[in-house]
């Protein structure tokens, strides 16, 4: 049954120390800024974070890392011009890093939600990221075996939810939202609007409500100019 939280603080309250938390977004698009801020205030620590990046500037995920609350991060692209907090922790040996090609990251998250035990992917074969992984030739093509990435919680951002928990997204802000919501035991989603059941076109629903546990309405989410992050 859908939980409609009164605040981001209430939404993230169940996140426990040591939890694996997926955080949606690619760049600023789809980044659940208010939920991440609530997680910072919440205080949970020793977290494993799954995100495409490892934080930018001094806010959001970067701030969470700066505060020493992230034990381990699984991402595709940690190093950026403004990932200084991650860089510092990493060089100091204070954060574990698992680098995963972006498509394998998305597919491993999808596999977790879809009950797939493991899958053979061509991406990464023959590269340093395949080291220690089972390789196999199938039908003349080379693959490596990748395993699902599950999470205890996911924090994502969608555009509109209905009271059945169904979600629609906006443009490229969709990115990791649908697969992360499905891969997490408890999925927490911030949306700009909540409508009644029947208020979304059933043909256009992207994330069915079965994947959504908690929704919190943030009518005017923070919108950074994408350029600021470059």
């Amino acid at each position, binding site marked *: 049954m859908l939980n409609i939280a009164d605040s981001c603080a209430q939404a993230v309250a169940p996140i426990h120390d040591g939890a694996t938390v997926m955080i949606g977004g*690619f760049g600023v698009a789809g980044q659940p800024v208010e939920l991440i801020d609530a997680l910072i205030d919440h205080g949970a620590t020793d977290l494993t974070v799954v995100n495409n990046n490892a934080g930018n500037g001094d806010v959001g995920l970067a701030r969470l890392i700066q505060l020493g609350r992230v034990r381990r991060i699984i991402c595709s692209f940690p190093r950026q011009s403004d990932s200084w907090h991650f860089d510092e922790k990493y*060089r100091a040996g204070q954060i574990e890093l698992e680098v*995963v090609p972006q498509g394998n990251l*998305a597919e491993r998250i999808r596999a977790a939600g879809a009950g797939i035990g493991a899958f053979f992917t*061509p*991406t990464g074969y023959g590269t*340093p990221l395949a080291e220690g992984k089972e390789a196999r030739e199938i039908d003349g093509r080379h693959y490596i075996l990748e395993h699902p990435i599950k999470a205890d919680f996911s924090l994502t951002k969608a555009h509109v939810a209905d009271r059945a928990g169904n979600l629609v997204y906006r443009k490229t802000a969709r990115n990791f939202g649908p697969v992360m919501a499905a891969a997490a035991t408890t999925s927490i989603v911030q949306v700009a609007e909540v409508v009644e059941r029947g208020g979304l076109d059933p043909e256009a629903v992207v994330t069915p409500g079965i994947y959504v546990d908690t929704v919190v309405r943030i009518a005017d989410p923070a919108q950074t100019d*994408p*350029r600021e992050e470059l």
Partner: protein
Amino acid sequence: MSENTVDTVPRTSETPLAPEELARVVARDIPAGSYVNLGIGQPTLVSNYLSAEDDVTLHTENGMLGMGPEAHGDEVDPDLINAGKIPVLETPGCSYFHHADSFAMMRGGHLDCCVLGAFQVDRKGNLANWHTGKPDAIPAVGGAMDLATGAKMTFVMMSLQTKKGQSKLVEQCTMPLTGVGCVSRIYTDQAVFLIEEDGVSVRETFGTSFEELQQIVDVPLRPAR
């Protein structure tokens, strides 16, 4: 190589090509009606030379087909960016999908062509473009490996030489690989190279000759047929 002599390699420009000029050469080689991913950085210039008649559809791996040009001013929508995190526009007939669907599209071989930058490419089409291999570097791969192995054709667009003058087309990549045997063509400021089963051919040169090129590149070259 029998009948072909080195003279058969056309010098199609008297000077090396600037990135914009090279982008035009790449664009000319993309078949009409193709679905194409232009990665980030220099290859994105190619889109400037694709016309409406080419009917080329651009893919951006963060979840869109039918990506339009860069957005400016009031057109900027923070929810609509490309893989380089640059704000872009829609085109009529575009569509959105999530990350797993987007990379499935790429991995499944549905994109006709992908254009990438590179640190090194070797004679077998192996690509190194994500990691210099320096021991203190923080590894970061993004979508590079998925792009390299996913498309039907992977083109590389790069300067032929490093700032120190070393050829980036090499006998065997020394930097960590991005993908194995994935590159089919290399577009450089000095020449266009074709990676073939049994060797590397030169299709055209820019501001240089086949012989001069062979001086720079430590891989046996031959004229393209």
